[in-house]
């Protein structure tokens, strides 16, 4: 691997990311899978970095999951999106940041479609007015939440209490980055670093002291694939997809996977259990599996957040070995206690995956 070669490509795919004043929209599934990640994002940006990140409870789903499952007309999806944009404008913002990659991809796709087919845009403008009495608007800058963390990566590093380093050996942690497919594969120029060698997560890892691992199947989808997962008859493909990625990354012995998409950490995490349970194969050291974290969780870890506040207990693959490696102090007894201190109930221990 020639690092300079990658740098050259990264330099060609730099998108403009405004520093402040964003209208923030959440992700449907992240809110339920990893709710602490979005909270962490808001906490870091608002409270630590003191940025103006606005959110409203009136925003809805973008319709992306329905769209990619072929169950919603395009015009409907576009009108939903137009409504989100209109909400942004209504609150006086022109920078739009979303937490979800599916949404991000769909927004990019929709904006491109409007650009190519202005008559469609006119139609949506009309739909929006008819249905919501809202004024049509488009964001000036559309970014993904990971773009913002990428933008702030050095500030975060400056305020970090630890690095992505194995405190016992002093070696940097080996980190696999996994980008959501819809982040830049559809529109390489819309992602930091493009589609082939995306830099958005690599930049964070580099800034926070980790070592990036570039494995052959790095481009592969996490396995979600919408219909591959939703329909049980297809679920084997979803699983096989993830299996292929783990087989490919295994020789590199990664300590950690960092992701920027709602589905990816979920599937890279949960399918490890299913693979272990159905084939007996585990990845990572001593049958522990490889933790797959969101970028907010990783940012939170380096910034010294309590792992249980970051929601790391919601992962199937145990994060304790990673925390130990990083030298993060944690109270095992509090792992399954809620914010209010009440016992959430702990899952049945899994014998196949430690």
């Amino acid at each position, binding site marked *: *691997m*020639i690092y*300079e*070669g*990658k740098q*050259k*490509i990264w330099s060609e795919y730099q998108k403009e990311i405004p520093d402040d004043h964003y209208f923030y929209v959440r992700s449907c599934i992240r809110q339920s899978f990893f709710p602490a990640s979005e909270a962490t994002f808001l906490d870091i940006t608002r409270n630590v970095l003191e940025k103006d990140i606005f959110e409203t409870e009136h925003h809805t789903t973008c319709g992306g999951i329905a769209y990619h499952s072929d169950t919603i007309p395009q015009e409907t999806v576009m009108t939903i999106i137009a409504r989100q944009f209109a909400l942004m404008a209504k609150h006086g913002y022109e920078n739009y940041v979303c937490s979800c990659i599916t949404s991000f991809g769909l927004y990019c796709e929709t904006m491109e479609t409007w650009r190519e087919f202005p008559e469609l845009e006119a139609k949506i403008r009309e739909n929006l007015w008819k249905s919501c009495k809202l004024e049509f608007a488009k964001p000036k800058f559309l970014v993904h939440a990971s773009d913002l963390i990428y933008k702030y990566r050095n500030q975060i590093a400056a305020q970090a209490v630890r690095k992505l380093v194995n405190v016992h050996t002093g070696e940097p942690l080996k980190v696999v980055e996994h980008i959501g497919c819809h982040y830049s594969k559809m529109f390489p120029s819309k992602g930091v670093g*493009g*589609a*082939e*060698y995306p830099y958005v997560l690599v930049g964070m890892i580099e800034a926070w002291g980790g070592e990036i691992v*570039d*494995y*052959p*199947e*790095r*481009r592969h989808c996490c396995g979600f694939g919408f219909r591959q997962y939703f329909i049980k008859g297809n679920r084997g493909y979803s699983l096989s997809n993830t299996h292929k990625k783990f087989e490919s990354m295994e*020789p*590199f012995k990664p300590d950690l996977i960092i992701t920027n998409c709602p589905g990816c950490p979920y599937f890279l995490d949960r399918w490890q259990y299913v693979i272990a349970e159905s084939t007996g194969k585990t990845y990572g050291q001593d049958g522990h599996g490889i933790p797959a974290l969101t970028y907010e969780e990783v940012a939170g870890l380096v910034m010294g957040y309590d792992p249980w506040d970051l929601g790391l207990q919601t992962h199937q693959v145990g994060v304790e070995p990673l925390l130990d490696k990083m030298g993060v102090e944690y109270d095992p007894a509090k792992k399954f206690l809620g914010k209010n201190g009440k016992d959430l109930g702990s899952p049945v221990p899994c014998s196949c995956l430690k």
Partner: protein
Amino acid sequence: MKNNILIIGGGPAGLEASAQLQRMGYNVILIERSPKLGGHLAKWDRLFPDRVPADEVLRSLLDATEGVKCFTDTDIRAINRLDKSYNVRLTNGITVLSDAVLVASGFDLFNAVRKEEYGYGIYNQVMTNADLEAYFRTGEDRRIENPRKVGFVHCVGSRDEKAGCRSCSKVCCATAVKQAIEMKQAFPEAEVFCFYMDLRLFGRHYEDLYLEAQKEYGVRFIRGRVAEVSENFDGTLLVKAEDTVASKPLKVTLDLLVLMAGMRPSASGKALGELLGMNVEDDGYFAVRSGIAAGQRSQQPGIFLAGAATGPKTLPETLADARAAAMEVDRYLTEVFPDARNYKQLVKERW
């Protein structure tokens, strides 16, 4: 009276046209922007289909240019058209009053870095056709150390609209087959794969080359464009393509991947074209007066074109084109140019 003719570009087309026009008695000034004459030919080792040494061909081209005024390391600073002639200021300070200008600005090899998925410049074991020729010339390349499995990717930067080059570069198929053979000659134990979309082996003896590669060297031809290359833990390459003949995706681990970078319009040629006010077509190559009947005349009277400046050409085609251009220059300078009174009318009729 001896007319001055300025020839821009010291590659095979420029050299051949210079030699021909010099023989006809014209005063030829050849300029070349790089320090060395010969263009891409000077960097190549052997030429398809018969694998003759490129140096031999270049030497005979250079030998024939005895007496041509030749400036290397020289570009054009400014050019302005007088009545009939061109006043050309060169970067070496010399000014030439030229009655005809022949542009032989050639081509650039496609910058393989731009096909990001192939990882040229990123993966250690990926190289281009030009790199491989350099290896054949010098025997040195850090990437080549007794490779056991070698792949050749055809059409890198050719027939690829997303890479901005829709057209076929014409020479890469034959080059790939030639290099595959040479690779097998150098490393008989190696397995060699050629990934192609169509094999465009149109010229004389090219099909023989293809047959030889299959029959004598066991080169495996796989119909399908390589879509993705990754680096394995051990530094080998994981290459993915579809075998479109088998209708199945395919993967193979290779020790070396050679990208057949195609022909692109010369970037410096383009800058020159802007100075001369010459039109280029969508594909970036110079427009000609008529693709069939007047392929060596530009759309500007007195400015001629030869070689790959007007699109991808094989070496014999380039040389033939250069000779044709020389004939055209001669015809212009004897039939059109001298008649000062009717010059405009003649240009209208005969250009």
